[in-house]
């Protein structure tokens, strides 16, 4: 298992609530959060929850994913443009290849990412699914 429990815990609001950052000087938004604005260089940033809706730009299918996800193969990874313009790479929940088309509307939910065997922690985080 490559997930470090304390590192996950520190970032849990990023993983489950999609807390990113917004530059208080130029208004640019980032996910995952950054300490320095990539647009204007300001360090004057605040936490900002990302919108949960967006559009699918592209996707890929992993038949041989990393060890933590091996038992869930195949895994679908999507490149998603959120409604605030921020791009996110995310696993796709309930993936149906017929509906994974560029431009498809998607919505974030919370799913199990992986678990550390039978006795370890369960790791939850955002995944996107295609809206029906």
């Amino acid at each position: 298992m490559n997930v470090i429990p304390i590192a996950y815990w520190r970032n849990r609001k990023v993983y489950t609530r999609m807390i990113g950052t917004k530059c208080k000087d130029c208004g640019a938004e980032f996910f995952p959060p950054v300490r320095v604005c990539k647009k204007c260089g300001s360090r004057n940033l605040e936490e900002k929850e990302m919108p949960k809706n967006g559009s699918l730009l592209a996707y890929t299918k992993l038949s041989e994913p990393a060890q933590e996800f091996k038992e869930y193969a195949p895994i679908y990874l999507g490149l998603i443009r959120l409604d605030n313009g921020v791009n996110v790479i995310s696993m796709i929940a309930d993936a149906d290849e017929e509906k994974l088309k560029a431009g498809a509307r998607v919505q974030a939910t919370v799913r199990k990412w992986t678990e550390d065997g039978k006795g370890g922690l369960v790791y939850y985080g955002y995944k996107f699914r295609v809206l029906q």
Partner: protein
Amino acid sequence: MNLNAAILGYGAYVPIYRIRTEEIARVWHGGGAGPNRMKAIASYDEDILTMSYESASQALSMANYPKIQAILVGSESKPYAVKPTGSILSDILGYNSTLGVDLEFACKAGTEAMQLISGMVSAGTIDYGLAIGADTAQGRPADELEFTAGSGAGAIVLGRPNGREVAKIKHSVSYVTDTPDFWRRPHDQYPMHLGRFTGEPAYFTHTTTSVKMLFSETGMKPSDFKYAIFHQPNPRFPVEVGKRLGFTDEQLRPALLNDDIGNTYSANTIIALAKVLDMADTGDMIMLASFGSGAGSDAFVIEVNSRDDDDGYVPFSERLRNYREVDYATYARWRGKILK
């Protein structure tokens, strides 16, 4: 007990995947089917935490995200034996100044959460609370429970009546006894049950007793209600218990779900309530009676007010029409029934 609580929002979530009971019977019995047509099954990445999140998100959105002070999650399929689901959920939903509690009473843990939060709201100790019932029910392979043990979650946001509530919870009673109809010991993966014993001494006795107590305490009778919701362990029991108590098909039919999704355990009656609330009109009275093995039943009197029109809200029955069937091998893989 008299209650002065209101349903401000509700949500119901059932996974998109179904398995036909014909498919289960094909594998274990060479043919036939279970008492229900299909059951809903959680995907490999779903559990009661993720399904609770789904149903709670719907309920909180409908209630316009009030300041929740108690999150009670009823379930018998918790991801952790020790580590509360309520606290994980509070973090994900963004409510940390809250009570976070897990409850268990077989299939009635969800209505226990409703009853407890209704009591706290009525007493004035909290303003708003979130009651959830959720399960990924366990059925031992080849056991008759495997036909019906399904997955789902229901959530209710409760507060005091404010004139814009979805419904008022006016009265509730509970009846419990030590009845060994169904149980699961620590570390066991699947529950044990006593087959036909689960009917008369357990389901029917406790459900009819709680509903008669409700009638006695409120002076109400079956004809006072537009809808009657009973726990649905299979398609037959809720109809039979309803008829014994004097309810009609017209009162019982709108809540029936078991044929399509199976028994969602702690979520069972809350999901059925969501289905009924979707179609109910102002002034309609609802009688709801849960049942939990072990055994007990909670009964409620609920009076419908109204629900603000929300352009984004999709009625539960409409969402149920969108499903995908999987075969037994996929179901067995996802639900941890294959040894590796």
